[in-house]
């Protein structure tokens, strides 16, 4: 055979050379103490930086580098002043609530004073003009702000001078000083820079009003997609927070640099603390972990490593990283379809009715049939079994609830009491319905395809099989599962059995406003029945997607929402938990934990107390110990 060796060898040598070029290329220094910067890995990226619109914890994180609100939560859950000089309270006279002679609410006034040393990152003073402008945008009908729940309660904002203003509420707002849009200004960090946003806002509105048929697209492109939101022109991204925007390479990283003029300061010289923060967006968790262990990252955010085993991570980190396990403020739960209840009549879900999910004994039997301790340990390392809709550590948490045990015997007894028995010996319980049909206990369970949820399904199949219930698991993408066409149509049996997801349960926020908001059914002040239960009659509006109805719970819910005294509100919420704990409109599985990793020399990088548990709450304090940063926490 003739030889072609030299020719082919040359080609292969060429390729090998290219490979070596890559391998021997110098290793860039990524960050850390050497550069006095911090590189954080995150699996999610915000769409844009607009303060009025959006969701996702990551946006809250990123914007916390650039903005600070009127107030913020410290690591212990104390509300501290941010842009404001102090947090308004009854005690300091900045909060006033007026009632008429019959005790009916008239109005609520909250006085705020902006700090004299509060400046936007381009040096412009932060004033009440910014507050008024932010509120104007928040209320404009053409601007797709995320929610107006709290801004709708505002009657007016009275400006006294450049630094003092009063918000007058026409409805009670006990959360008048909380972050995350509860004050009623912007959704993210309350106040936006007027001098940057006003020309953009006016131009977008003018164009949208001139072409109403294209209004949504004009607002999307010209307002939501304006330079201050996208970072295309870095000088336009102006914030009130500890860092100044530098650049944003979409789907790669966002870089910010320290502001020497920020009014909150760490102990000691500011040069001892990180001067630059880079948040790298790496959507694939194993890749993010690889980058961390390869030294490309200094820390992870509070979302990236959710569900990972902290013990294994600590071992893999080889002593170079601190692994923080944080109660997340979210409770994983199995939500029942209650639309089989007789109150829904023919409108309800027939399969849920056949399975008697509306009967409390069915739900109690199911919780007793599940070894939640073992399940939590298996699917979410570090998670704690829950029996409430409020997480431990929250001021409203009730420790005196029934701690539902794993007791399959009691579960079987309860099911037998309801008429379930295995008549054909196939291992699945059955019963005869009042109209003479024989039904088997085949319980549909739907959730997202997240690995820990799929594992939960596998375990639930085994536990429930022990008591004669055949769990039938399915998975849907989150975009479908949480679509209104699906989750809000339980009455049409889109999910006839159980839907599993996690919901917020307090910590630093207000539980009466979180998961409990999904449980109330009827607002007694409106003529419509069951306002909050999505049904055909109300075009499937409302957040009580389970269809659970409890009059006393509703009464307490509205009492809590109108109670300004935190201690009294906590007592009401504890009573609400007693009802939920017995009725089990959902089975609380466990309180989730989040995992954060950071290099051991990084000081003051720790989870905050707000519901998102963001570690970005005190970015001005981040620093490397070997560069002289002082550990405050």
């Amino acid at each position, binding site marked *: 055979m003739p030889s072609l060796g030299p020719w082919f060898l040359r080609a292969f040598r060429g390729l090998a050379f290219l490979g070596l070029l890559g391998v021997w*290329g110098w290793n860039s220094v990524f960050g850390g103490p050497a550069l006095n910067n911090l590189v954080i890995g995150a699996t999610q990226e915000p*769409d844009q930086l607009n303060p009025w619109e*959006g969701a996702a914890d990551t946006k809250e994180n990123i914007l916390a580098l650039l903005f600070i609100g009127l107030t913020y939560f410290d690591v212990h859950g104390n509300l501290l002043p941010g842009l404001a000089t102090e947090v308004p309270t009854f005690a300091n006279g900045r909060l006033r609530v007026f009632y008429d002679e019959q005790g009916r609410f008239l109005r609520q006034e909250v006085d705020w004073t902006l700090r004299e040393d509060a400046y936007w990152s381009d040096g412009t003073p932060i004033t009440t003009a910014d507050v008024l402008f932010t509120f104007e945008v928040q209320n404009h009908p053409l601007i*797709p702000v995320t929610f107006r729940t709290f801004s709708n309660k505002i009657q007016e904002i009275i400006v006294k001078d450049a630094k003092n203003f009063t918000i007058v509420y026409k409805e009670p707002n006990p959360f008048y000083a909380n972050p995350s849009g509860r004050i009623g200004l912007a959704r993210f960090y309350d106040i936006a820079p007027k001098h940057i946003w006003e020309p953009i806002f006016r131009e977008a509105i003018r164009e949208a009003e001139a072409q109403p048929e294209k*209004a949504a697209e004009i607002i999307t*492109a010209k307002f939501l997609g304006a330079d201050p939101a996208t970072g295309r022109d870095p000088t336009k991204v102006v914030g009130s927070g500890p860092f100044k925007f530098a650049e944003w390479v979409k789907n790669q990283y966002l870089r910010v640099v320290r502001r020497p003029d920020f009014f909150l300061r760490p102990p000691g010289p500011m040069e001892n603390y990180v001067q630059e923060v880079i948040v790298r967006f*790496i959507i694939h968790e194993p890749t993010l972990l690889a980058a961390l262990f*390869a030294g490309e990252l200094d820390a992870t955010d509070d979302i990236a490593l959710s569900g990972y085993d902290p013990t294994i991570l600590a071992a893999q980190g080889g002593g170079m990283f601190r692994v923080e396990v944080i109660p997340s403020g979210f409770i994983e739960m199995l939500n029942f379809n209650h639309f089989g209840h007789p109150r829904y009549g023919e409108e309800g879900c027939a399969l849920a009715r056949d399975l008697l999910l509306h009967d409390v004994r069915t739900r109690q039997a199911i919780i007793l049939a599940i070894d939640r301790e073992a399940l939590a340990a298996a699917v979410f390392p570090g998670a704690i079994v829950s029996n409430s809709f409020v997480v431990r550590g929250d001021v409203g948490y009730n420790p005196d609830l029934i701690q539902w045990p794993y007791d399959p015997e009691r579960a079987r007894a309860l099911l037998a009491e309801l008429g379930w028995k295995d008549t054909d010996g196939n291992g699945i319980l059955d019963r005869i319905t009042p109209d003479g049909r024989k039904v088997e206990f085949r319980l549909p369970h739907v959730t997202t395809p997240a690995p820990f949820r799929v594992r939960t399904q596998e375990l639930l199949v085994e536990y429930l099989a022990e008591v004669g219930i055949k769990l039938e698991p399915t998975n849907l993408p989150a*975009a479908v599962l949480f679509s209104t066409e699906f989750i809000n149509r339980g009455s049409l049996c889109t999910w006839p059995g159980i839907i599993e997801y996690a919901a917020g349960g307090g910590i630093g926020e207000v539980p009466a406003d979180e998961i409990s908001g999904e449980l109330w059914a009827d607002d007694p002040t409106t003529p419509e029945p069951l306002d909050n239960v999505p049904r055909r009659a109300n075009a499937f509006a409302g957040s009580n997607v389970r269809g659970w109805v409890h009059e006393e719970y509703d009464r307490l819910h509205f009492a809590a929402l109108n109670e300004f005294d935190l201690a009294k509100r906590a007592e009401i919420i504890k009573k609400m938990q007693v009802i939920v704990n017995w009725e089990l409109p959902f089975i609380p599985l466990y309180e989730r934990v989040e995992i954060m990793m950071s290099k051991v020399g990084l000081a003051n990088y720790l989870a905050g107390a707000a519901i998102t548990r963001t570690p970005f709450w005190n970015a001005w304090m981040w620093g490397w110990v070997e560069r002289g940063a002082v550990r405050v926490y």
Partner: protein
Amino acid sequence: MLAFLMRRLLLAIPTLFLISVVVYALLALKPGDPIDELRFGNPGFTHADYERLIKLYGLDKPWYIRYWYWLSRAVRGDFGPSRRYGMPAAEFVFRQRMPNTLLLSGLSLLVAFAVAVPAGVWCALRRHSFVDYAVTTLNFVGISVPVFWLGILLIYVFSVRLGWLPAGSLGTPGVAEQGLGAYVVDRLRHLVLPVLALSSIQMATWTRFMRSSMLEVIHDEYIRTARAKGLPERAVVLKHALRNAILPIITLVALAIPGVFSGAVLTETVFNWPGMGRAIYDAILANDFNVAMVALMFISLWIILCNILADVAYALADPRIRYD
């Protein structure tokens, strides 16, 4: 040939129209809308907010009305804004994502081709040799191993254990400030692992095809004649054998070209490479219809064009093929 080309190009227009109707309908009719993610990400979000935003974004209209609105602007080159990124959808696709995809997938295709053709020829000429067996074994590994798993393995070995190459992403933040040389080397280093992973399957498949195709050709009489004429072996292989043996590979390459534009969602995910595959996947999940539409329509167009291109390439490579 010209008439054939014109006929095929004219047929492409109704095909694209039908594709656009089907894709738009599928996107619009799937459960979920852009507002849902806001609803679950904000505890204060009420149904009134939902109704307000649905109306504001024009999502309260039937899908065919929205489709007509989209089509009437798309034919004028206006594909609307990306709801997620707040920029024109076409700009996002063609300026932000397409260059990354072309770089990664194009380079992978080139590397796969550059390795597969000589390797296939080599193995055919040295049939049953040690190298032939070794390459065949590697081919089976390349075909069998899922790309995402190979990607993770490469990252583990070369990034975590050896620390030679970065774990993913386009480049190191801020490296451009260190000069052009640093920037280019940094980009190359970030390309090595994803290109290796992405080209593995094509490399393996094409090597197998090239080997068997070459084996068929190399024993033909015209090759024996060429050798009998005293032509150098290199000329026999490259000018006579390879030209005929490469025909099946042309088909495979032509079919692979649309993939260069559509990206590779798994590889892009594992290596954190912001390309078209990930853009389409994210756009569909996030109900960013304009981005999904412009990307999918562009890929459809390319598939149609590449099929035509493959037919033309056949005719050029083999004079016996005519499209009269």
